[in-house]
C-alpha cells in the first residue's frame, strides 16, 4: 500500500480526491446506498452543496441537458438556507463523514460551500458556518452577481479582493475560493484572492452553456442558460488550472471533467495540489474512489505517464 495521504491548507487528508461542490449529496446517497456509502466513502474530503442565507427552491425544471460528452445543468442552488443547514443538514452530514473514517476524530474533513449576494451577507455566512466545529474548511462560491454592484464577484479581480477582505476576519478556518471559468482572466482573479487572504483556490466551476428545445427553439432549461460540465470541458479546465497554478503560491484544487486516474494525474502535473470529481460521480457514485485507486497505481509504477489522450 502506498501512502496516499496529503494535506490541504493544514488539514490532513487521507488522499487528494475531493468532490466538486453540488455534485454529491451525502444525505441522499446514504438513503440510496445505506451503510455501504460510509464503509466505502468515495472522497478524501467532502465539499457540501452551496449554502445561501435564505432557503432556495432552485430553478424550475427542466434542469438538465445532455451534451456531447457532458451535461448542462441549471439547478439554481436549492438549499435549506443557513439556519436550516446548520440545524438539520450539517449534523447529519457530519455524522456520516465521521463514520466514513473512524481513524480520525471527525472522520472525512468537511468543506462547506457558501454563496452570498453581497459582501456582508457572505461575511455572515462565513462567520456562522466557520464557528461550527464540524467544518474543516469553507469554500466561497463567487459565481454569482453582487447585488450591490451587479458584477459577478468571481469574474472580477477587484470584486473578489473586496469580498475576501470583508470575509477574511470572520473565520480562522481555511478559505477556498471557487473560481469561475467565465472570467476574462481567472489567473488574475486567483492572484487577487490570494493577496486578499484566500488559503486556496479551486477551479473550474461550470462553463456557461445553453440548449434549445428541438422543436420550439426556445431555451430548454427552466433557468434559460446553465453550466456545462463533464469531459467536454476537461481541456479548457486543464489550461485554466495550469494558468492559475503558475500565478499563485497557495494550493490549487483542480477539476473539470476528470474521469480517470490519468486525467487526475494531468491536473496534478500542471500544479494542482488536489483534484475534485464532479459529473463523473453521476455516472458512477464511487468514481472518486476508483480515480483515487487509479492515481495511486500510476504513482506506484513510477514510469513516465502516458498522456490521457492524444491525436496519435
Amino acid at each position, binding site marked *: 500500500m502506498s501512502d496516499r495521504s496529503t494535506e490541504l491548507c493544514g488539514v490532513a487528508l487521507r488522499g487528494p480526491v475531493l468532490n466538486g461542490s453540488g455534485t454529491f449529496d451525502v444525505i441522499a446517497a446514504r438513503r440510496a*446506498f445505506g451503510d*455501504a456509502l460510509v464503509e466505502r466513502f468515495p472522497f478524501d474530503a467532502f465539499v457540501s452543496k452551496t449554502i445561501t442565507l435564505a432557503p432556495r427552491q432552485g430553478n424550475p425544471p427542466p434542469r*438538465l441537458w445532455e451534451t456531447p460528452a457532458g451535461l448542462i445543468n441549471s439547478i439554481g442552488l436549492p438549499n435549506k438556507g443557513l439556519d436550516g443547514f446548520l440545524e438539520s443538514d450539517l449534523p447529519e452530514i457530519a455524522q456520516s463523514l465521521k463514520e466514513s473514517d473512524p481513524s480520525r476524530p471527525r472522520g472525512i474533513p468537511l468543506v462547506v460551500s457558501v454563496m452570498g449576494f453581497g459582501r456582508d451577507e457572505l461575511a455572515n455566512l462565513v462567520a456562522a458556518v466557520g464557528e461550527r466545529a464540524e467544518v474543516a474548511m469553507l469554500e466561497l462560491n463567487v459565481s454569482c452577481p453582487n447585488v450591490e454592484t451587479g458584477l459577478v464577484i468571481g469574474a472580477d479581480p477587484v470584486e473578489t479582493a473586496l469580498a475576501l477582505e470583508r470575509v477574511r476576519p470572520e473565520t480562522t478556518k481555511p478559505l477556498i475560493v471557487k473560481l469561475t471559468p467565465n472570467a476574462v482572466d481567472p489567473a488574475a482573479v486567483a492572484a487577487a484572492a490570494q493577496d486578499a487572504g484566500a488559503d486556496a483556490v479551486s477551479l473550474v466551476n461550470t462553463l456557461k452553456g445553453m440548449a434549445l428545445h428541438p422543436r420550439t427553439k426556445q431555451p430548454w432549461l427552466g433557468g434559460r442558460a446553465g453550466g456545462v460540465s463533464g469531459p467536454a470541458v476537461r481541456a479548457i479546465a486543464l489550461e485554466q488550472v495550469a494558468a492559475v497554478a503558475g500565478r499563485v503560491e497557495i494550493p490549487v484544487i483542480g477539476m473539470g471533467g476528470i474521469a480517470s486516474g490519468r486525467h487526475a494525474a494531468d491536473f496534478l502535473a500542471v500544479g494542482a495540489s488536489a483534484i475534485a470529481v464532479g459529473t463523473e460521480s453521476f455516472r458512477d457514485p464511487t468514481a472518486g474512489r476508483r480515480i483515487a485507486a487509479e492515481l495511486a497505481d500510476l504513482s506506484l509504477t513510477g514510469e513516465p505517464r502516458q498522456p490521457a489522450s492524444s491525436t496519435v
Partner: protein
Amino acid sequence: MNEPRTLAPPERRVATVSGVERLGAYDLITALDRFGPSDPRPGQFYMLAAAREWGGGGDERPYLPRAFSYARARVESDGLALSFLLEAVGPGTERLSALAPEEDLALVGPLGVGFRPPADGTRPVLVGGGIGAAPLLCWQEELAANRGSPAVRLGFRSAAHAQAAALFGPSAQVVTDDGSVGRQALVTELLATELDDDPRATIYACGPPQMLEAVRAFCAEREVPAQLAMESGMACGFGACFGCVVPTSNGYVRLCVDGPVINAAVLETALVAGTGH
C-alpha cells in the same frame, strides 16, 4: 417508515446481457446481475449504460446513464435476471436496444422508492400507458402472489406497441390510440369504467406525462388514492444532481430519491418534461 426501498451497492457494476427479445416496437433486454441485491421492489429503477461504446452515437451522445424501472426480476442460481423494456427513441435507448447477448451492461441500482401496498379496503388497479407498462409487470406479479390478480388496464399507440401487453397475460384489458388492438380509446376511459363499477381502489399508474396528469386529475376528483411512477431527465439517480425535481405541495422533490413512485395527492401536476432517451 418501512418504505419499499431496497438499498443499492454504491459502486457501478457490470451485468451480462442474457436475453434480447423483440416485442413489436419494444425490446425486452434481460441481464444477469451477479453483484446486486436479489430483492428490488417493484417501481424501483436502475441507471443503465452499455459498458462499451457508450458515446459516439447521434449528436456524439449518449454520455449519462439512463434510468429504467425494471419490468421483471427472476432469482437464478448465479444472480438476478433483470428485464428492462426499452424503446429506441434517442441515442441512449438506441445503444441499449442494440445490446447483444454476452455484452456487458453497466448499472447502478435498485434506486428510489417503489409502490406501496393498496390503501386499506381497496383493490389495486394498474394503469399503464406505452412503455410505462414496464414497472407494472413486476408489481402485477407481486400482487398476484400475495392477494390475487389485480386489474390491469393498458393503453398503447399502435398494434406494434401493444405487443408488450402479452407480458401481462390474458386478463389485461388493452386499448390503442388507433384502434388496431382493442377499442380505440384512452386508457383513462378504462379506468373510469373500472371506478364506476367499484370506486374502492388504489390506482397504480405509469405512462407519458399527459396520461399521468389525466389519471391524477381524475383520481383527485373521485378521491381515489393513486401512486404514480414518474419519469424525468436524470443525471445520477441517487440524489446528487438535483435535476429530476417535480413540484409538489412540499416544494420540489427529487424523483430519484423521493420517487419515482409519488403519491398523486401531493402533486400539483403530473405534467413534467422528460428528456429524450
